[in-house]
């Protein structure tokens, strides 16, 4: 499958490995700095307004209202990367929150209750809180709790669920319901912040957002190259602008730079594991933020994650030049059509296409203890991919932000077995699934 001649997989887990990062990877600090400083400024200046919001929410709407988005989820990942999430989660559990609840939510509850600083996942009190059930019910349950605790007005977008087999006419009806809520939201914002929608500003944000998304989609096109010039070890950090600042110039500049690096690398036939890319993987689910080294652990086997629906989900095609009402309808359509929360039929078709397009050798499904919606249907997804694509699929049960769920020895053992199956398939033996 691979154009290059890879070396055999290194089965020694302690073997040194070098993953080539992009020359401009470090430039991520500039949009991050811009985001955190601007957020701080908006929180301090009384005439500026901020909102907590979540994945799946159209940030461009907030930007069009001159409201700065703050992301508790993103700050939860910061806490995990800084090895603070366990402490904050346990604090939330000491307040009575169940061990079985979302670890992002508990990290945020712990951070707010202990007054954690920004660098440890802390976040400022917003002027309003807005969220949607697009991805999960946890978002609005979590934000409802925090809105009550912080005494901040809450707006919830109710996003109807598009289950397998939903027809287009029904979806159009759902969109109408969503658009009605946009107008309710504008009323809510005006009531609580005095801000009104600025159509020009909103359109500009949408255009910049589409530019950012288009760059990300182009980056994904280059990930199809063999060897892949860009892996999940890096995308898990670099997609940050897509999540928190999709309509902002600073993120675009960063994406333009890394795309330039990727193009150059691809033109030279180089990859993130030049000469050693043996297995091309797809990873479904949220990564283990407290243990990003996992991606580098995979590299020891010559494995590179070249496609992950999670980061791709943040780069849908955004509406431009559609007019006001049609733009709102398209925003609603996009909110209901996120790859991360596709229904099972669509998810299987989507995975099969990605496996073909990206020449995937194996799929890792993260059955996330903190994300039951994403974990639903994974058994069927696994079975369908194994049967219809004839590739190994591994389900790993773990957690995105709670390091207590990560068992290194167990996961290493399962990864070794998975790598053996991929290797056997490459040598024409029939593949067998792992549970």
């Amino acid at each position, binding site marked *: 499958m691979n154009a290059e001649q890879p070396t055999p997989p290194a089965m020694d887990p302690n073997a040194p490995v070098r993953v080539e990062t992009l020359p401009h990877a470090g430039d991520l600090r500039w949009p991050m700095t811009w985001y955190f400083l601007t957020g701080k400024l908006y929180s301090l200046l009384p005439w500026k307004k901020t909102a907590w919001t979540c994945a799946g929410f159209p940030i461009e709407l907030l930007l069009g209202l001159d409201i700065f988005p703050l992301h508790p989820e993103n700050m939860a990942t910061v806490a995990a990367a800084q090895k603070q999430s366990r402490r904050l989660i346990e604090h939330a559990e000491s*307040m*009575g*929150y*169940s061990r*079985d*609840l*979302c670890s992002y*939510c508990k990290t945020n509850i712990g951070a707010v209750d202990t007054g954690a600083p920004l660098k440890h996942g802390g976040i400022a009190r917003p002027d309003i809180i807005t969220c949607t*059930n697009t991805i*999960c*019910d*946890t978002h*609005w*349950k*979590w934000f*409802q*709790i925090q809105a*009550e*605790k912080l005494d901040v007005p809450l707006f*919830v977008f*109710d996003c*109807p*669920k598009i*289950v*397998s*087999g*939903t027809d287009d006419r*029904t979806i159009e*009806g*759902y969109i109408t*319901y969503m658009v*009605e*809520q946009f107008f*309710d939201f504008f009323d809510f914002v005006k009531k609580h912040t005095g801000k009104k929608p600025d159509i020009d500003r909103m359109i500009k944000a949408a255009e910049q957002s589409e530019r950012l998304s288009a760059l990300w989609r182009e980056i994904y096109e280059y990930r199809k190259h063999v060897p892949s010039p860009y892996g999940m070890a890096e995308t898990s950090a670099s997609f940050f602008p897509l999540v928190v600042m999709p309509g902002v110039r600073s993120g675009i500049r960063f994406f333009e730079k890394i795309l330039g690096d990727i193009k150059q690398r691809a033109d030279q036939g180089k990859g993130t594991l030049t000469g050693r890319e043996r297995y091309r993987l797809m990873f479904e689910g949220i990564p283990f933020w407290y243990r990003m080294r996992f991606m580098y652990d995979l590299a020891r086997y010559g494995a590179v994650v070249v496609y992950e629906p999670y980061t791709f989900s943040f780069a849908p095609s955004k509406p431009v030049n559609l007019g006001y009402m049609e733009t709102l309808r398209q925003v609603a359509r996009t909110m209901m059509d996120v790859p991360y929360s596709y*229904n*099972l*039929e669509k998810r299987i078709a989507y995975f099969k296409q990605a496996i073909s397009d990206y020449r995937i050798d194996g799929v890792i499904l993260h*059955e996330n*203890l903190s994300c*039951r*919606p994403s*974990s*639903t*249907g*994974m*058994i*069927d997804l696994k079975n369908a991919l194994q049967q219809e694509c004839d590739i190994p699929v591994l389900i790993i*049960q773990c957690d995105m932000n709670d390091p207590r769920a990560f068992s290194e020895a167990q996961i290493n053992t399962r990864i070794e077995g998975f790598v053996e199956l991929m290797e056997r398939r490459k040598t024409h033996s029939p593949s067998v699934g792992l549970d």
Partner: protein
Amino acid sequence: MEKNHMETIAYFDASHDMPEEVIAAAGFAPYKILGDVRASNDPADRYLPAFFCPAARSIMTEALARSGQWAGIVVAQGCNATNRHYDVWKRHVPTPFLHWFNTPLKDDDAAVRFMKSELWRLMDAIQRHFDVLVTGEMLARANQESNRLKERLRVFAGLRAEKDMTNREYLSVMIKSMTLPKAEAIREIDAAIDTISNRGPFPGDKVKVLLTGSDVTYPELMDQIDEAGFRVVRDDLSLGERYFANRISESGDPVECLARYYLSIPKPATKVGLRQRLAYLEGALAQSGIKAVISQNLKFCEPYAYDAVLVNNALKSRGYRVLHVEREYTAAPDNPLATRLAAFAEMG
């Protein structure tokens, strides 16, 4: 297949979101799938991980075993179990008719319009699939029958605080109300009212409590609460007061009446409205003079687990004694639960 079995349309409902009246108006018996706590969840566990709601897995287990007896199944949006498991059911539960009924999270004007459109979609799907007609008049009659049943349940439930009615007896009648054809259920409720009315007064050795949290679907849990010395005289459960607290308006468009009814019932944790949920609990406590609350959360039932901290702290701050427990899905005696209940009882 026996004809009477084919007259049932079963439904998977995480709360009280499923408009049974539409099924009844179409000439079918609505049947709420509750699962069987005494049966292993192994059949559903082939498709759903063990860290998912065990009640939802049990409900799927029942559907896998019994769907051949039902004319069809409707899944009503309630929580992430219903909306995500639908796809899994679609692949594995054999049924000639499977319909997804979306319900809104909120209760504002946009939500009412959305609920109405979903009611029309459900009616249309049933009419087309089964070649039946559901007129406004038929739906209005079904709404009236539903109100009659709810009225009888209110009378029955009111006896909890006055008579010697066990927790099991209350839940058993609630289960019949949602699983039997409505006319038959009304007869059962009336019989239960007669029986309980002739009982002695509320036992002096029992403590009156309000029960809140995850839905209770099996009587063994109610027995355990009874055995610890507590009688549930108020609740906000779906197999409880949420089902009969309000009535459907009988004037005006029956679809509009039904939409407004379902958005006005006591809030479950699966809907936006934490303050409204708390207000119902406080109202129930104030009306009944109850001082103690048992809040229980089924393992992996997320909506109630999220609510529990704020709701329970709010009730405690108003002077109520609150016990919160996380329970397993089991018909066997739950020793940790028994210990917690005993300690709560000792606190007076």
